[in-house]
């Protein structure tokens, strides 16, 4: 029975993603850490679908929508980073403070 080890794996990957999002200075690095967290959630859902006999196999359907939203998020996020880079010539988040006043 690999149910609990896989939940532990997804918890570890989620924690690594949180660490990356907290400590990265590069905005693209923060986006990559977000992808790690999305994937941890997907592993969790797929594991639950295999071992818990979910109704309507929601553990397969939900990750599809998560991947869709992650793709949209990556496109918009990277567009925002490119636009910021054109304005401020940096991608380091502590230097991007144009909304601070």
């Amino acid at each position, binding site marked *: *029975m*690999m*149910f*609990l*080890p*896989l939940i*532990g*794996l997804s*918890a*570890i*990957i*989620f*924690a*690594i*993603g*949180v*660490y*990356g999002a*907290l*400590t*990265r*200075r*590069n905005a*693209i*690095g923060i986006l*990559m850490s977000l*992808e*790690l967290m999305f*994937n941890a959630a*997907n*592993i969790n859902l*797929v594991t639950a*679908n*295999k071992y*818990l*006999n979910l109704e*309507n*196999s929601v553990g*397969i*359907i939900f990750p*599809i*929508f998560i*991947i*869709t*939203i992650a*793709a*949209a*998020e*990556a*496109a*918009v996020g*990277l*567009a*925002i*980073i*490119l*636009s910021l*880079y054109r304005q401020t010539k940096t*991608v380091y988040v*502590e230097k991007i403070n144009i909304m601070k006043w």
Partner: protein
Amino acid sequence: MLILLLFAVIAIIAAILVVSMKNIMHCALFLALFLLSVAGIFFYLDADFLGIVQILVYVGGIIVLILFAVMLTSRVSSALLEQTNEQKGLAIAACLLLAAAITAAAFRTPLATTLNPVKAEGTTHFTGELLLTVYALPFEIASIVLLVALIGAIVLAGKKGE
């Protein structure tokens, strides 16, 4: 079982390298390795459609986007800069606590683990059927979200003054 263990170890090592490497380009490449090993875990867990979508959308799409963004925004000197901020120790402590809390919660929850009967032809057939019957409305909303994201990305990153 052994294959699952191999993929899990590769995923954890690649994830740690993604958040700790100095060169952001190498981070993106290790993110690709991580996503591929997650696809392997999906294949092991009888989610074949999801594994293929993972490889197509993540490794084929998002990684290429990220690599483009890295190449468009990095400078020659940026590989020498410090990539982490000064909250490193505090962040490590918080994340260890978070992982321990999630794992403890999972172990303490009484879940009736009954193995799902494996379908011989895989889950793709049922996934498609469910997407067009039970989950038809979320499916259509997702397409609108993708359209809005496409237009938004063009508006944000496109050339100004045209």
